[in-house]
């Protein structure tokens, strides 16, 4: 396609005005790029709307930035710092681990070892391309190895150990099958012979690697000119307890370790026990060494913790039996931090208007926008537009159109891709979204902003349905706020998560984005408190407050979610693995944890479809004086939003429903509902208990989007239009349309102090029209 490639990311994504923000940039094909700071006002280039609009902003930024090509190293592994070199130059030794392989690879996979690939030095225990367990040693000149003869079965727990005696040069590899009724994909009814024990005299004694290699779990050390030292021969699968002895163990000792006995002290160099350090709040990236030297391992690219271990016996979660949660899942394609060098640090002016900005880079006819979302230094406006940055991360770099065979059936579209998508996908080094699967089929539970994210570009359209999604879609609401002349601040999920209700309090009204799907407990609490203290929320989205999402307090760049049980889930966590490692809480749907979105904003997810969006029609409640002001300027029979940039309507894509049984406040009034959805809008799976035909839009009354209004304590209120497509209808007809009229009616009322219009009408009699 093109020889020049510009990629980059910002850290943080959500700086305050007056703060510094780092831009990490990689450019191929040019040593410099033209840089301009721009305010993004509208993204969608659809000619039916206002088109792409940006405003150049003068800030202290050189017009040309010197740049270079930067590289990303994908794959998760753990590394032992080993400053004293206790694991280097081992002569006689034993390496052992409980292993749960998940995927064969056409190269070696390292379980553990200190091995330099380009120098052929050190030692390593791993799995070869045939699936055999193998120990290899090298002295820089010769490499020798020993391997078992039958392949490990994927998704089954084994104990593997390899020992080497430098005097006799005898090497042994032991594989002991640890499958029980609970821990593996297969059970004990399978008559497979998992055990193996081979012995052989090698001709090479491993030599010390020095700085050429590190002692790694799930990786060996590679080196090349461009990348320097990096992890390779990555492992796919789980590892549990593991360790190193400085002597060759006998069979009895091996068997004792396999059965989970505490390791004997004699000659023990290290014993990594991933269950140590698990607290009720989860666990971090350190794998503790309980051996004599305390050589802890540090995970890179977030090996997935709190996974079931070899000794798991069906405990619901790690809270019940933490000692059975030693599983650490490694993936060759995991990425939570590109670790690029900072190319430019931009000092944002203190008086910079709050909004969505981007560093626009241009070179050789190629352009990229690296977005940032700038919050004011102190809140100024009455309106706070809460941009769902958790959602942005959850969908970051999604591969659905490219990899999920069911994606076209879900969206009922043929995907529309662009050359930029292909360029990005060809590189395949910027990680996955929480909608994608790792190469071994496991779902991806982490997503981070410390990497270039193509789906965060203002002009980006989600290929699956050919309309903007997440940030580019939210820009439609932002454009309309500009158009309608409202003064607003923007803030992000990350701010709400970090500050709770304090982030929302300064505002008279908070606007949700089109798809506020990923919520942490802090965000739920903050929103609920805000509403109960008189705050007002305009929930202008679909499928919000849905997934229980977590984040480490000190690492805002990375969110975690586990998809399980019910809901429209791109993957399904394995049994027992539904809790977030970063917080210790159970993930899945908020509704499964007693906090259905209906309890806060009155609506919750009910159907999705992307073929065509429809319109809303007024419901009888909208004529009640308590809320009829919302419909000022709207005819009784008027179709509300039979237009839009998201599939041609204001009601569509993902729809939310009023349901008292799920916690919609009993005082909620049903203002309008959508009509006419096709069967490509099926009822969502969490609503399906018994499966029977006819749950599509033409046959099931629960397939609809609702528009509701209710008041909360102290003059608070919620207006909710349960449809992703709502905000993308706003820019139609130059921003003057009935969706805009309703939005304006609400905004005008909500930004005023004091009582809400219509609040005096609390009686039932004689009040109809």
């Amino acid at each position, binding site marked *: 396609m093109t020889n020049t490639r510009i990629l980059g990311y910002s850290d943080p994504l959500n700086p305050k005005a007056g703060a510094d923000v780092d831009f990490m940039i990689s450019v191929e094909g040019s040593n410099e790029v033209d840089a301009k700071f721009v305010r993004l006002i509208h993204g969608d280039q659809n000619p039916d709307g206002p088109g792409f609009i940006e405003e150049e902003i003068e800030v202290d930024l050189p017009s040309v930035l010197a740049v270079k090509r930067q590289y990303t190293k994908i794959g998760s592994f753990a590394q032992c710092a080993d400053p004293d070199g206790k694991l280097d130059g081992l002569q006689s030794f034993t390496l052992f681990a409980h292993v749960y392989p998940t995927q064969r690879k056409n190269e070696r996979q390292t379980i553990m070892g200190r091995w330099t690939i380009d120098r052929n030095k050190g030692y390593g225990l791993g799995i070869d391309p045939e699936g055999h367990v193998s120990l290899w040693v090298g002295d820089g000149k010769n490499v020798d190895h020993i391997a078992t003869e039958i392949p490990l079965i994927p998704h089954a727990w084994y104990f593997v150990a390899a020992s080497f005696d430098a005097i006799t040069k005898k090497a042994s590899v032991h594989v002991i099958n640890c499958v029980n009724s609970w821990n593996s994909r297969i059970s004990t009814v399978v008559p497979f012979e998992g*055990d193996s024990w081979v012995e052989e005299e090698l001709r090479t004694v491993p030599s010390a690697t020095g700085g050429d290699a590190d002692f790694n779990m799930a990786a060996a050390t590679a080196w090349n000119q461009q990348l320097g030292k990096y992890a390779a021969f990555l492992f796919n699968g789980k590892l549990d307890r593991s360790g190193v002895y400085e002597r060759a163990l006998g069979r009895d000792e091996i068997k004792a370790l396999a059965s989970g006995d505490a390791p004997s002290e004699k000659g023990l160099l290290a014993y990594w026990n991933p269950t140590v350090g698990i607290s009720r709040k989860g666990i971090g990236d350190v794998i503790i060494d309980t051996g004599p030297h305390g050589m802890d391992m540090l995970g890179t690219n977030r090996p997935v913790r709190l996974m079931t271990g070899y000794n798991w016996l069906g405990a619901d979660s790690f809270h019940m039996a933490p000692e059975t949660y030693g599983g650490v899942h490694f993936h060759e394609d995991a990425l939570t931090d590109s670790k690029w060098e900072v190319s430019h640090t931009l000092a944002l002016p203190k008086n910079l208007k709050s909004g969505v900005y981007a560093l626009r880079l241009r070179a050789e006819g190629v352009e990229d926008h690296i977005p940032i979302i700038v919050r004011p230094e102190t809140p100024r406006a009455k309106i706070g537009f809460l941009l769902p940055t958790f959602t942005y991360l959850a969908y970051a770099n999604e591969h659905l159109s*490219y990899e999920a065979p069911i994606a076209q059936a879900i969206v*009922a579209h043929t995907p529309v*891709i*662009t050359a930029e998508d292909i360029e990005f996908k060809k590189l395949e080094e910027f990680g996955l979204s929480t909608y994608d699967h790792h190469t071994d089929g496991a779902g991806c539970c982490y997503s981070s902003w410390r990497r270039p994210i193509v789906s965060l570009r203002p002009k980006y359209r989600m290929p699956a349905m050919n309309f903007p999604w997440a940030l580019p879609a939210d820009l439609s609401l932002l454009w309309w706020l500009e158009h309608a002349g409202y003064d607003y601040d923007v803030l992000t999920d990350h701010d709400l998560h970090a500050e709770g209700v304090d982030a929302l309090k300064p505002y008279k009204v908070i606007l949700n984005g089109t798809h506020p799907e990923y919520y942490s407990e802090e965000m739920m609490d903050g929103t609920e408190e805000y509403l109960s203290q008189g705050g007002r929320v305009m929930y202008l989205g679909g499928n919000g407050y849905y997934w229980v999402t977590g984040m480490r307090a000190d690492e805002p760049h990375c969110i975690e979610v586990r998809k399980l049980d019910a809901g429209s889930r791109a993957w399904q966590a394995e049994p027992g693995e539904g809790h977030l490692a970063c917080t210790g809480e159970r993930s899945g749907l908020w509704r499964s944890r007693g906090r259905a979105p209906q309890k806060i904003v009155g609506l919750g997810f009910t159907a999705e479809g992307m073929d065509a969006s429809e319109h809303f029609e007024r419901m009888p409640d909208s004529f009640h004086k308590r809320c009829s002001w919302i419909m000022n300027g709207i005819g009784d029979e008027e179709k509300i939003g039979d237009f839009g940039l998201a599939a041609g309507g204001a009601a569509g894509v993902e729809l939310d429903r009023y349901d008292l049984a799920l916690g919609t406040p009993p005082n909620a009034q049903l203002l309008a509902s959508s009509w*006419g959805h096709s*069967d490509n809008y099926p009822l969502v799976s969490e609503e399906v208990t018994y499966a029977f035909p006819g749950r599509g839009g033409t046959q099931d009354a629960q397939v609809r989007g609702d528009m509701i209004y209710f008041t909360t304590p102290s003059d608070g209120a919620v207006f909710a239009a349960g449809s992703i497509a709502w905000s993308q209808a706003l820019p139609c007809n130059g921003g003057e349309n009935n969706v805009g009229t309703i939005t304006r009616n609400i905004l005008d009322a909500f930004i005023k102090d004091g009582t809400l219009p219509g609040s005096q009408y609390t009686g039932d009699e004689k009040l109809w029209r």
Partner: protein
Amino acid sequence: MAQDTKYYQVGQRPHEIFFHPAGDSPMRRRRLPFTRRHLLKWRSRANPKSLRQERALSDKRPFWWTLSLGALLVTTPFLSNSMITIVAIFCMFAAINVLWTLVIGTAGIFSLATLAIVGIGGYAAAGLNVWLGLPWPLMFAAGGLAGLIVGAFLALPSTRLDGLYYALLTMGFAEICRVFVIQLKVLGPTNGSISSVGSFIPQDWFLQRPGLLLGFGGAFILLLMSLLVFRVVHSERLGMSLQTAREEVGGEAFAETIGIDYRRARLYVFMITSGCLGIIGGFYSMFYMSISPSIFSLDQLLLLFAMIVIGGLGRSEGAVIGTAIVVLIDKGMLELGPLRILLIAAIMLGVTLWTHNGIAGIREQFRSYRNRKQSEARARRTEKGGEVMPEEAIEFTDKQEVYYRRFHKRLRDHLKTLITEELIEEHRRAPLGKHSDALNRVLNFFRRGEMADKYAIMRQPEGFHKYKVVAFSGERGAPPRLVDNKIYENINDAYHAVFLLRVNDLLES
């Protein structure tokens, strides 16, 4: 489509011998001394039906070599005197041919100077023995040295001249040797021969049974040694580096690109072989206690060539089998007279006509023939995307796939009946949104297809409403391919174009 309702029984009892190693006792694997190689190559697998570990010899050639050479060693002492001689000659020629195979097969040098080098080695050793009194054990060294020197000379043009020309050159070289020896003044009285050569066979045992047996023993050891040389050269570093260069298409260029100096490797192989052939020459003159110019003759060379062709080029077992056949006919059926040469020629003709690579290659040839027949038989009974047949089902790890094939076959057959002009028109009018039941079913089937080759639309950089049809690769990182170059100016036209492509695929399936 006619359904073939006859089911064939699939499955067999394997005739291979399997061992079932216990997982809780050590499997100790031995290596050849001073190498990292194992004595035997084993192959293990978990039997997909029983899940038991099965361990079998993966390379059974050591077994067959031991069996056949052992049988030769054990039975020869019980044979008649003339047969012992034939066996000894067989061993000697087999040794020569095994080495020759290295030159032609491994090094890829088409040399016909093999016998000439043997002859020069023989003459050098015999001459030194007769005129300078070199004791017989040193004759091996003398022959080897002479072979090495001649080999080094002959090797030089081998990288310069291509196959046929080099063959002619080496043939000419043999002829020159013959003429040279005949014209040597000293050998004039004996017509070019040297006789009364010292030998490892005591003078008075010569042509006696113990002498014959000793001769056989020597030739047998010679064969073993040349097999060892073959093994070491062919399968170790030298042979490995030459393997790449042997590829027919671009092999040499590729080898060079990845840094293999295949010319040097070829020279080494040629020189090592020449040295060994010289040693055999020394042995030859001792075995017969004489040597004559006939060793340089063309008929002898062609006989040797027949052995290699019949056995199959490039493999030691081919060289040995070919030698056995030809020697048996040529020396063992003397009563047939000149007919036996015709017989050899006939066999050679047959082998070249009907086999790909001599007799040693028959096994592979038969296997590929059987596979071909098998797939032909399958092809006759099946259709593209049709149901899985019992003999195919053994190749499916996930048996659910077998059901999917059946289901999709029948689903497609049904959906084909739904495709009408009206249905296509309905889609053209509105590719998205509510559709008739029939169109919904057809579309849903299309949308659920696998990712590989699944159609998509690509927006062109020239404009927002400029689209082309592409198809996904189904592989992470591999970009989609362009289906055709037509540009659609309306997204609905592009959707409909994809629909028509899919309808076409469905009707063709």
